């Protein structure tokens, strides 16, 4: 929600800082209102930046100074497994979310005003529903005697073991992250001139060719922005994998908690936190670049 909203509601020009020359204007007292920023900045400095800096510091100094914790992280097979599992889970979530969102976003552009409102409301429901409520609901739905298994049983497909498995985690996470995929896709798709596709068709392209040769390439910026957003958010998930996944299939967030809370290994936990944070920030820079290159705001 966060980043979509950021792009949506706080466009960059809202911060008029410098003139066209790139120099700060020199009128007197121009910087005075900046005083109003001080309380918020203080709070964020003490209770956000400082703890993160401490975590970083401990990652390099506990128990010994140096890269010991990072060497440990990248040379322990179990940790590499966790890292790979985190990546594959996030990748699965991204792929499934994309496959579900692409036709859905297309339907949003094809629908009439009322249909579009309904589809938009439906995709925003996960935003409104508290994380704990949703995760609890998925526990109920996915459990071995749950709704889904009963339904699958009726049609002769079940029962399938869903909870405490990676499948369960993916199902729960995709539902949560769908809006991050649908909204950028819709933003890009709604700006595409349909006549391009019609032109291709009238020149003899078959529907599939027209789609693959004309429509799909035009939507790629949306695909890139949405996929990166979903992937990066999925990397840091904690509650959903902790409740829907198996403890044997822990993701990096759960592993960080185990190190810090269970084993009191602040240095190692911090190092894993640094790895997670680093990956997140690197991917977010990619998101920013992908969004900027299209010269389009990702918004509804």
């Amino acid at each position: 929600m966060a980043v979509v909203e950021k792009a949506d509601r706080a466009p960059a020009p809202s911060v008029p800082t410098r003139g066209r020359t790139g120099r700060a204007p020199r009128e007197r007292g121009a910087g005075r209102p900046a005083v109003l920023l001080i309380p918020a900045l203080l709070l964020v400095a003490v209770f956000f930046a400082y703890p993160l800096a401490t975590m970083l510091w401990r990652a390099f100094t506990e128990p010994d100074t140096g890269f010991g914790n990072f060497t440990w992280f990248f040379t322990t097979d179990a940790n590499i497994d966790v890292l790979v599992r985190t990546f594959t889970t996030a990748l699965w979530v991204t792929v499934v979310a994309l496959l579900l969102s692409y036709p859905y976003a297309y339907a949003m552009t094809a629908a009439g005003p009322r249909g579009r409102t309904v589809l938009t409301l439906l995709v925003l429901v996960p935003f409104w529903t508290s994380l704990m409520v949703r995760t609890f609901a998925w526990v109920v739905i996915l459990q071995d005697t749950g709704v889904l298994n009963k339904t699958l049983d009726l049609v002769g497909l079940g029962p399938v073991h869903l909870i405490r498995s990676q499948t369960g985690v993916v199902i729960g996470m995709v539902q949560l992250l769908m809006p991050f995929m649908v909204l950028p896709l819709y933003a890009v798709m709604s700006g595409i001139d349909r006549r391009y596709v019609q032109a291709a068709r009238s020149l003899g392209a078959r529907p599939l060719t027209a789609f693959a040769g004309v429509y799909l390439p035009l939507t790629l910026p949306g695909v890139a922005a949405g996929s990166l957003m979903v992937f990066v958010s999925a990397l840091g998930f904690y509650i959903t994998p902790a409740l829907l996944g198996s403890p044997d299939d822990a993701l990096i967030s759960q592993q960080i908690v185990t190190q810090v809370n269970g084993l009191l290994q602040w240095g190692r936990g911090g190092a894993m936190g640094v790895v997670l944070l680093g990956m997140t920030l690197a991917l977010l820079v990619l998101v920013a670049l992908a969004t900027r290159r299209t010269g389009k705001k990702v918004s509804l």
Partner: protein
Amino acid sequence: MKGRVALWAFCGLVGVWLVAPVLIVVPLSFTDKPSLVFPPTGWSTRWYENFFGDPRWTDAFVNSIKVGLLVTLTATVLGTLAALGLTRARLRGLPLAQGALLSPMIVPGVVFAIGTYALFLKMQLVGTLLGFVVAHTVLALPFVMIPVTASLSGFDRRLEQAAAVLGAGRLTTFRTVTLPMVAPGVVSGALFAFVTSFDEVVVSLFIQSPYLQTLPVQMYSSVTRDTDPTIAAAATMIVTLTTAIVLAATLLTARRSRAR
């Protein structure tokens, strides 16, 4: 034509899947059986009675409301001031300040949580009301700043100048001109701040103590511990409350953009 039908059927299925959790939780809270079997075979309100009769749940609920209201207050005041500073000041480095204030939105929850936990252990803030309020305020700030900045940037500064020319002092100008104009942004920011705090789980799990827990924390331990539909009753109440608040915030935002 066949393609259209298929597309709509697909969207229907996806839609059901998106709202399924809510559709399951509400009926489940009215079941008469002490198990999480869906669909319920009989109906009762006993899980709501259970909720309000169990101090673990009621305390958590009261704590959540208390923390939420305090966070709303602090985040709205600090966030509105910061938004004013960001839109009004002309200084280098402002984008940096804005980035710093918005960054809590993008840092993974667990990373922020262990950092906060370490700090709170040192400052003895674990399990305190102050600790919850401070940690949640950091997370809620961006959700206040974004709508307030948006309404400030669409705001005609000449109105304030007009008030000043007509003899209003700076405080009077702020109270009678600026504030009413940005009020919808401030109110929707306040509502989002409350919801952010009310729903927060990850950090809360770390900074809670047996003596001070919030509703999501109590839900988390209940999911992992027992299979008692009281949690469904709690979930239904949370859904009702947050939906009402978010709807109010969305309507306010919609009215604001129409008014422009």
